[in-house]
């Protein structure tokens, strides 16, 4: 579940995570707004990494109405809205929730996460490596 794409690392880390999940046998589905989704689709024109891509609001509607659900949900967070979406997923979905928190103010955001989830956090804005490293330490693609 993608947030606003204004922080550059999101697209790069999303593709990385999709690849790792795919290699572990998961079928990743991306949900984001138009801009966030388009950044991914343009970056992967032959769909080597991407599979299904859906609108964020549509995903929330389908999960709320019990028409769709997932085993794991990774929510990209770099602002308050991201926390709201992650908390919503925690309430409407049976998925295990992972919050990927990044950006300049990632520590303040982490303090506001008080619902059950696995927090993966790093001060990553332009350079995705700190967040990649934090993800690798958690290995969320492990069974």
């Amino acid at each position, binding site marked *: 579940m*993608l*947030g*606003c794409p*204004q922080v550059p690392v999101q697209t790069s880390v999303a593709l990385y995570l999709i690849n790792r999940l795919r290699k572990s046998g998961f079928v990743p589905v991306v949900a*984001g*707004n138009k*801009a*966030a989704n388009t950044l991914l689709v343009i970056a992967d024109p032959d769909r080597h990494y991407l599979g299904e891509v859906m609108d*964020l*609001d549509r995903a*929330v*509607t389908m*999960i*709320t109405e019990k028409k769709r659900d997932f085993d794991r949900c990774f929510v990209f967070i770099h*602002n*308050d*809205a*991201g*926390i*709201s*979406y992650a*908390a*919503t997923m*925690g*309430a*409407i979905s049976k998925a295990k929730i992972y919050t990927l928190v990044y950006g300049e103010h990632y520590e303040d955001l982490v303090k*506001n996460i*008080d*619902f059950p989830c696995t927090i993966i956090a790093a001060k990553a804005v332009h350079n995705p490596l700190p967040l990649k490293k934090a993800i690798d330490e958690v290995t969320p693609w492990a069974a």
Partner: protein
Amino acid sequence: MGCVESMNYEILMRGGSFKECREYIMKHFTEYIEVQPGFRIFDIHTIGVPPIAIGLDRDFIIFPYTKPCHGTFLLRIEDTAEAARLRAMKK
């Protein structure tokens, strides 16, 4: 935004946090209900950290509306039927 965008809405707060929106509703409206994320208002499913406060003021509904890039807006929309539906939930 679906049908909410085509409705006659007033923005009471722009770019606030979910906490600020909840506190605003609880401070400024004596009548409100608390719902879980995903609860439907008009044609949208509410986004937020539970419990989400929804204010009622006569036929006006005051509720948070979250967009990924712009944060949470606190909207005020007049709708007699929807206000009655929400009010009935309190009983």
